[in-house]
């Protein structure tokens, strides 16, 4: 009996911890998941201002402008729609007009976005997968393969994210 009751205690405490973890996970998944939109999806779904999102596409040529103290504005485009992005912070070293980019932040208007982190892969041949997919959907993708030639175990991308500690 003792062995049985102890086993019961063990199993019930394991279930309790698992339940606790599952509850936390479900709660967190509801609240802290961030959706990814391309510019066209952004226009179509018209997320309410204040919604936290990731957007991705190409940095429109000629759109980058310095507007203040370490603050820039640029347009993210899929060559059919644009989203204006404002960002305060250091742009990644490989951030360039015409290159793929992913920005995370909040919606501030119908086609406006305030980013708190901007991610651009450092390898010219590489494009963030979401961006590649979004562009493919729009028929804007010509390159044979998006696979990177560089592989490395280690931190090897340039990015900027002021909110991350």
């Amino acid at each position, binding site marked *: 009996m003792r062995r049985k009751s102890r086993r019961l205690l063990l199993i019930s405490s394991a279930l309790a911890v698992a339940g606790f973890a599952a509850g936390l996970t479900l709660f967190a998944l509801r609240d802290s998941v961030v959706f990814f939109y391309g510019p066209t999806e952004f226009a179509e779904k018209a997320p309410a201002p204040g919604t936290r999102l990731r957007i991705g596409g190409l940095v429109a040529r000629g759109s980058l402008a310095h507007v203040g103290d370490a603050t820039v504005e640029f347009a993210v485009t899929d060559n059919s729609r644009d989203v204006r992005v404002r960002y305060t912070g250091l742009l990644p070293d490989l951030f360039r007009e015409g290159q793929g980019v992913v920005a995370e932040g909040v919606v501030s208007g119908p086609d406006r976005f305030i980013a708190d982190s901007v991610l651009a892969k450092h390898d010219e041949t590489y494009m963030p997968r*979401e961006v590649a997919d979004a562009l493919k959907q729009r028929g804007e993708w010509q390159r044979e393969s998006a696979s990177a030639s560089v592989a490395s175990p280690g931190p090897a991308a*340039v990015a900027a994210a002021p909110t991350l500690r």
Partner: protein
Amino acid sequence: MIVETGHFALVLALALALVQSVLPLWGSVRRDPTLMGTAVPVSLGQLALVAYAFACLAEAHVAADFSLRNVVENTHSTQPLVYKIAGVWGNHEGSMLLWVLILALFGGLVALFGPGIPIVLRAATLGVQGWIASAFLLFILLTSDPFARVVDPPMEGQDLNPILQDIGLAIHPPLLYLGYVGFSIVFSFAAAALITGRVDAGWARFVRPWALLAWTFLTLGIAMGSYWAYYTLGWGGFWFWDPVENASLMPWLAGTALLHCTSVMEKREALKVWTIFLAIVTFSLSLLGTFLVRSGVLTSVHSFASDPTRGTFILLILAVFIGGSFALYAWRAPMLRAGGLFAPVSREGALVWNNLFLSAACATVLVGTLYPLALEALTGQKISVGAPFFNLTFGPLLVPLLLVVPVGPSLAWKRGDLLGAAQRLTAAAGIGLLVAVVLLAVTRGGPVLAPLGAGLAVYIVLGAATDVALRLRPRPMPVRAVLERARGLPRSAYGTALAHAGLGVTLLGLAATGWGVERIAAVTPGQPVELGPYDLVVTGLQPRIGPNYAETVAETEVRRGGRVVARIAPAKRVFAARRQTVAEAGIVTLGLGQVYVSLGDQHADGTIDARMFWKPLVSLIWCGALVMALGGLLSLSDRRLRIGLAVRGSRPAGSPPPARPPVLPSPAE
């Protein structure tokens, strides 16, 4: 020519691995000593061949042999030697070769240093290791040949990715691989135990040193990777909850749980089924990590090769090994007999608590990492799961675990005295609470979690110290007697205390991030910028030329109260070969904190965008990990853990938790 022999050696290694995966296993099932005897020479031979192949590739990199595709793509003749060598594993093919080399190394080590292990277990273990080696050697030879030639050799290489040209590349990948590939041998031991049907305290004793070794390296590898990302990425962050980081954190969490429950199994022969399960899970998570990292299915801030065909191959390996081992587990585990009994309040109970929360935390990381993949496959929606998710799930699950860390070692095996343990820890808990309250009062209006975390950290460190102190001096006694006991106390007891204290130190560093200061501004040279207790002044922007790059350096003075306390030189480098810009952060450690400056764009009016941080106590994050690893090494040097040495170290009489001597006669004797 040398290159071809390297390629040939790899093919031979595959042949030997195939032999290794059949003969010793067959022998261990039929109890045939001749067949089992093949395990040792074959695995040593395989190690030698893989090492030779690796040396050939390294030689090609150092000699800058541009007839090799791998060399062309990752080397430049002006590159310093250390990066030529590190560049061997700075790419997919070489990295996989290092993976297999370490796999073979652990097999070889068991063959060399495992004479104490029963021959049946050793043969079966090496056999299973042979299976893994065969799969990955096949993977390399079929999909990622590092020895591929180019038809028309260029005069110059394309240079190693500039961000990788860092001493971090020389240190981090080997350490990390020693860690998570090291768990392969623990997996093999588990599978071997299931195959041979013998799982007892002796098994746990043979496995524990290997688990400890792998865990120590994994701890160092993760810490090193985190520090590397911290100083190269230029965001001042050290952990991003990125899929690639999670890929190494999950085996660490499972491995930590495994380490704790092998000690239960070794001492009390309880939790056998669970230990075997964890051993399988830990390496499965390593394999999953390899798949996530190598296939590029998840977008990461760290850059890796992504090739769908390679991804599919690894997925196949993953499916075969995880599926196979769990099938074996489901078939054989019910035959294991239940082990020793223990009361809920006991050392075992505390270790079960540890295992429950570590596994739950590990599971939430797994869910958070794979959820975007699953959702996209099911609904096509793209999402990202970032830091908020992990902070919300991982944090609450870790707190109950951390609270019990100092309690566990002060409980006795089998049946513990909670009241006694609480009394022993009163001082530690009291001081921790006091620290939290005082800090809360002093930093009123500031972050709330930081003082609470700091208090918890102090409690853990003091709790670890208390544990050792009470073992050395359980009652008033002369210094001489204490010294005598200090010599008699097993090193694993010191190791445990040190590792736990290291955890507290890391936690203190993490908590202190709440008090950090960050500024992003366009800085005018000559004008001071206030940053926490310091003022930063950029004194000038100078161009400089490095071996394979040109840079702009911002000479910066760090002043405190008008006095210069340090100078840093953040820079922006332009690498000619790839026409790529890389920001080099300027960092200085002041006390235990760091001032961190990273440069952005230069403007026409002479200002330069800069991102500046004051990070109090931040160095403790990595110091804590070093202390943890030191604890692991100290434990490893314990004579009781030395394989084949069954004689137990003498234990001072009446030390608080009188560990029971192992019940089983060791098969090693």
